[in-house]
């Protein structure tokens, strides 16, 4: 009789312990995904703030390249709106048009030589690679989270949580823009 009770108590303790540890682990990974998104968000915001400076600088030397300025400001306006996926896609598009804008500088030696332009260019490139790294970290965090909640025993404790989506960039934005001179 006592043996039965002890066995039962042991099972209860193990189940509770499993539940607590898996619940916490799922929560930790969930938080990590959110923290990873916050990193991307910060960089998108920085980029949003920085782009007008670059456009103004280039305008000072090449004011007639109207079409490309419009494309830049259109992609920029979508940077802070919509779903995570669409914001990252807008960012990839912005990278492409900015690549073309920066390539313009080749035709304007004075612009290319300006210290301000060089600094802006370095900052934009820095943000671009930071966004790429932040996306890499985000996707890794999502992978860890998805693995945990879809495999046993994590799946038993996931409480109907759904898999999170990876942040993919559209195919057409994946290749760096080709610049011809």
């Amino acid at each position, binding site marked *: 009789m006592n043996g039965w009770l002890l066995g039962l108590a042991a099972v209860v303790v193990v189940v509770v312990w499993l539940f607590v540890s898996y619940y916490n682990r799922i929560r930790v990974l969930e938080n990590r995904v959110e923290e990873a998104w916050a990193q991307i968000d910060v960089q998108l915001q920085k980029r949003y703030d920085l782009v007008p400076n670059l456009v103004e600088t280039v305008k000072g030397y090449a004011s007639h390249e109207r079409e490309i300025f419009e494309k830049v400001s259109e992609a920029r306006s979508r940077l802070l709106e919509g779903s995570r996926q669409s914001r990252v896609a807008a960012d990839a598009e912005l990278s492409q048009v900015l690549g073309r804008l920066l390539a313009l500088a080749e035709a304007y030696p004075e612009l290319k030589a300006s210290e301000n332009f060089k*600094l802006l260019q370095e900052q934009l490139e820095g943000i671009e690679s930071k966004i790429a790294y932040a996306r890499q970290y985000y996707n890794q965090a999502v992978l860890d989270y998805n693995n945990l909640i879809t495999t046993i025993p994590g799946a038993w404790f996931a409480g109907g949580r759904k898999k999170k989506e990876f942040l993919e960039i559209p195919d057409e934005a994946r290749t760096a823009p080709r610049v011809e001179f």
Partner: protein
Amino acid sequence: MGVRSFHDEQARNKRDSLLLLIVVGVVLFALILSISYLWDPASVYIMVPLAALITAGYTWGNYMFGDRIILSYMKARPAEGPQFTYLHNTVEGLAIAAGIPKPKVYVVPSEELNAFATGRDPEHASIAVTTGLLRRLDRLELEGVVAHEISHIANRDVQFMTLVAVLVGLAGILSNWILRSYWWGGSRRDRDERGNLGLILVVVGMVLAVVAPLVTRLVQMAVSRRREFLADAYAAELTRYPDGLADALEKMAALNRGNMKVSETVSHLFISDPNRSPLDALFSTHPPIEERIKRLREM
């Protein structure tokens, strides 16, 4: 892999650091006691609490300020100004990729190509690169090197390696000191007065004095080889481009003369041995550079 693969290393390094602090604490305590006994047997009773206090203070100080001691010893300056924007961006990007806060960034004036990281945990970490490295490496190579240092930080290698650096230095000072005090103490007093306990303490002190620097040196060599390979592998994972680091290491092998003239006690912190040409592998705290390049090329 990725984010999670750091965890085993972190746990191992936390355990190793704690162990190191305890072992060194005990050894230091024993050393202070034997020195005081040699000097004057009656002083032992006063020295017990004093030694405990000194030991605790010293280990705590090293844990808290080891990174600053090393940075100032290396004459590292904070990287400030627009010419370093590029370096800051690279460091910040890779810190984001590894999921740690951005470390502080320092520059060491030297024509050699080298870099190191230090600090007690990822929240209080610093990365330093030489000016020669900044000048000679392209962006992908620099990313490889910075990723290697970021891996050391995320793994908590730096915590352990910084402790080893300061404590190896201590072993040298202490063994010097104890041998000297034995010499003077022995000549001043008649040894028979001290009895058996005194003799044991003297022997222990002597053994410690000789063995401690050797042991710390061996620990330093053994741990840093394994850590270097691991940090290379994590760096490749962070940048997704192992060739960047491989190219950087090749440049170091070709250009470095091993004449940074830094103390042996900190040499294991560097990505490439600062005191020897990378082609000279004997007694090195680093795995042969060709072996590291080969492993990276195969990834």
